[in-house]
């Protein structure tokens, strides 16, 4: 491996190291889902695949959009678009904590030099109807990962339980590279004229999207898109339903519409046009979609459905 691709040297080196590590543990290494999502958990490889009895191991990077977290590129730690590294293992292996700690070692965190801690953090996604128990993983006081044993997803008990690891890649990279500002991260590991920083890649995007998210996104249109996605999700679920004895035919396309509705809600929320009371009802509407999609997925082959 070239020096530039060492995990402590470059952002992409960090990602490649994690890919290699989890690939060696038998994970399928997937690419990001091609839709806007708020977290790696929304990727169907986690949400839907954590349902049903079939074993599943996957690892992937997921660009995550949190419109409200935009800071016009002025905050050294907060971004409206960032990367999560997501690992899902079903069922959760007995040595999951050890695997996680070995992955930290692989990216250069020596646990005899750094203070790694598992601090209670119960995870819940109201929009996905999901919850689990686990921890925030701390390295020298910084939260670098989330570690969750899924108990329920889309309103269904996980059977068996999956273990989910989510690494905050920028934070982790800032830590191992020793930089204070996310935009100073070395992206490609090269120096001098060849060096590309995180700022070179994303600063302009952060500025532009902050304007979009907070000031200019067309709220009328977003409200309409939300409604359309909701309706389309319901419609696809209905059209794909061929009766109790047959597999559901369109769980995945329906779930895409659920993701879309969720993102529309996040954008509307960032624009500040959703009141506190309405907020709850929007979350509930997305959750209802997620539950319906989960139910449909459980009636597909990947969800463990066996046609009668």
């Amino acid at each position, binding site marked *: 491996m070239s020096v530039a691709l060492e995990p402590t040297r470059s952002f992409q080196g960090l990602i490649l190291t994690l890919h290699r590590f989890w690939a060696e543990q038998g994970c399928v290494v997937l690419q990001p889902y091609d839709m806007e999502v708020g977290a790696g958990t929304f990727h169907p490889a986690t949400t839907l695949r954590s349902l049903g009895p079939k074993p599943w191991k996957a690892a992937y990077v997921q660009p995550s959009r949190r419109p409200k977290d935009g800071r016009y590129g002025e905050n050294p730690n907060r971004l409206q678009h960032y990367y999560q590294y997501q690992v899902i293992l079903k069922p959760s292996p007995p040595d999951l904590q050890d695997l996680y700690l070995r992955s930290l070692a692989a990216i250069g965190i020596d646990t*005899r*030099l750094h203070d790694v*801690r598992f601090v209670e953090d119960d995870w819940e996604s109201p929009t996905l109807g999901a919850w689990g128990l686990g921890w925030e993983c701390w390295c020298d006081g910084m939260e670098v990962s989330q570690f969750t*044993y899924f108990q329920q997803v889309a309103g269904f008990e996980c059977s068996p339980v999956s273990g989910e690891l989510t690494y905050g890649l920028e934070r982790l990279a800032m830590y191992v590279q020793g930089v204070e500002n996310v935009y100073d991260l070395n992206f490609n590991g090269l120096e001098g004229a060849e060096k590309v920083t995180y700022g070179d890649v994303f600063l302009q995007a952060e500025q532009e999207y902050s304007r979009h998210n907070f000031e200019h996104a067309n709220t009328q249109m977003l409200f309409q898109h939300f409604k359309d996605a909701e309706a389309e999700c319901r419609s696809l679920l209905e059209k794909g339903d061929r009766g109790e004895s047959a597999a559901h035919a369109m769980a995945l396309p329906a779930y895409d519409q659920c993701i879309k509705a969720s993102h529309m809600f996040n954008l509307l929320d960032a624009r*500040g046009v959703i009141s*506190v009371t309405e907020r709850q009802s929007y979350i509930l509407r997305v959750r209802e979609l997620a539950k319906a999609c989960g139910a449909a997925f459980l009636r597909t082959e990947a969800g463990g459905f066996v046609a009668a």
Partner: protein
Amino acid sequence: MPDLLLELFCEEIPARMQRRAAEDLRKLVTDALVERGCVYEGAQAFATPRRLALHVVGLPARQPDLREEKKGPRVGAPEAALQGFLKSAGLTDISQAQVQADPKKGEFYVAIVEKPGRSTPEVIADIMPGIIRGFPWPKSMRWGAASANPGALRWVRPLQSILCTFGHEMETPEVVQFEIDGLRSGDVTRGHRFLAPDLIIVRRFDDYVAALERAKVVLDADRRKQMILTDARNLAFARGLELVEDEALLEEVAGLVEWPVTLVGSFDESFLAIPPEVVRATIRANQKCFVLREPAAGALTNRFVLVANIEASDGGEKIVGGNQRVVRARLSDARHFWETDQRPLPDFESASDKPLDQRLAKLRALGIVFHEKLGTQGERIDRIVALARELAPLVGADPDLAARAAELAKADLVTEMVGEFPEVQGLMGRRYAELQGEDRSVAAAVEEHYKPQGPTDRVPTDPVSVAVALADKLDTLVGFWAIDEKPTGSKDPFALRRAALGVIRIVLENGIRLNLSNAFASAYRSHRTTNPLLASQLDVAAASAGQSVAATINAVAGAVYQSDLLSFFHDRLKNYLRDQGARHDLIDAVLADAASDREPPGSPLRAGEPGGSRSRAANDDLLAIVRRVEALGRFLDTEDGRNLLAGAKRAANILRIEEKKDGRAYADAVDPALLAQPEEQALATALDAAEGRARAAVAAEDFEGAMAALAVLRPAVDAFFDKVTVNADEAALRANRLRLLSRLREATRTVADFSAIQG
């Protein structure tokens, strides 16, 4: 006597659950042992982030033998009955049972079931799976492949191993063998996750604790706390500084480490421009670190103490560096919030030129719901403003300042800072109010109106703070009473007990005369104006009763709050005074005096009595109640007081008995013509004078005076009981003497119900 050692080793247990879990484990295991006849000498439980441990000493080697007689059917009973008996008694043939004779029933079978006691390890092996499966974790989970099975084991986090040994001190203990969901008990554990991860073979408690220490695990949470505290104080002292102690944080941090290593970090001094409470909250909430200040509770400094879980090979340099970076980033965020909150708020700049007023405008515009049935925060603010203005003159505050303070009191809820750190609400409002040039009392009230938060919290004293604090709490209490959301049992989700205690403490500690019933009615009127639901209910009620809405409000307020909310306040007051060391019976005596309205209506002995509402005014007034309790206490400390109490109780006892016997009350007037003996006449004369004076004094709220007036009665009462026979043979004389005693009882009731006083 043998000892039991048990360890349940798992993935990291949330810090807040550890202490309780250790205690639960101790109780569950020892209770189950005792229930099975295995009494013990002592038991101690421990918790670290990764283990619960239990040491039970002085157990018997075996359960005691049990001999049980089982009664069976009579001799010659049907075959089915005999078979059932054999089965339940564990016999194979009826010849194994004994025959006993009973004089009534005749002969019947008895089975003597002798149950030899099992060995204690067998008993332990028997009880443990049930205890583990049913362990009362606040939240538990499933994990791994087994989680797909119904009835899969649940634990707080995945349970990894179980250590369970039993034996005498001098012998090699045995492993208590049991299995739960594929996990077998054994005699091994592990040390510190990073510093000593190897397996450790354990015999008993002594070597267990010692081996854990060698493997960098301090088993006892209290010892970990002490280590952290001592080290933190020393590190501070060495720098000429002082640790800002924080028990809750210490408890939490001790639950996050097995091997505490205390280190000091620092941050850039420029962050000290942020309010110190925010710096502390940031460092505490996000980093679980302690802050340091100048000696003698001086100013906050730029140093903090962190507690690591490892002894790092570089002396902790990297750990400190990492923590400093995070603290810096968090403080940068806090500074950003602090500065943003002082700047104009986009979209609300036209509402006002003052930043906090712009936030208030946003709070109103957002329509944030306070409670589904009690409207929005904006409406709540309007009510508190109105009530604070009304209460202001009563507490010596300027009404305009009180109203302004009430208006701004909740505005900081929409600031960035409070959004991030809810625990600095109020404080931030005060800071921002000061920065925009509000009156000092107004700014202080924005913070202090939340006070007191509990029995030991400081009570506000500035009149403006007092007005807003009372208005806020009364609005909450009356509101939740109006929608029937009262505290029940241990449930008090809206902290209404705390609110009532707050009102009580503010009133008493500031010596405020406040008529609670009037205050309830005012708060209720405000709720009506901002709550359409309540208003429409009232309109309907008014229409059906054929009276004005105003009259209905007063009627409802009177009916609901007089009795219910007021007695809630009385209960809280009793608790409060009891905690202050006041005599419980004196409080009851003073409150019971005016509580004739709590008696069932038409109660035959009370119905004809005058003055049911006599002292009600005083019962609305917390300060008056307390002054009466104090005056009564002092009175009863005098000889006159004690003797009068004895006389009054004697009178009350006689009356109670005789009135019951006769089935009538003797509340009618004394007939002067029937006062036969001079002692009777003297008592009647004394009562005439004393009762009038006592009533006048009570009306003037001169409780000492009322007591003094009653004290005069003592010689007459003593003489009466000395010389006069109440139960005279002549019926007319007896009745008149009972009337006289009734008058005595009435006279003492002007200050208290003496029958409620003990001794």
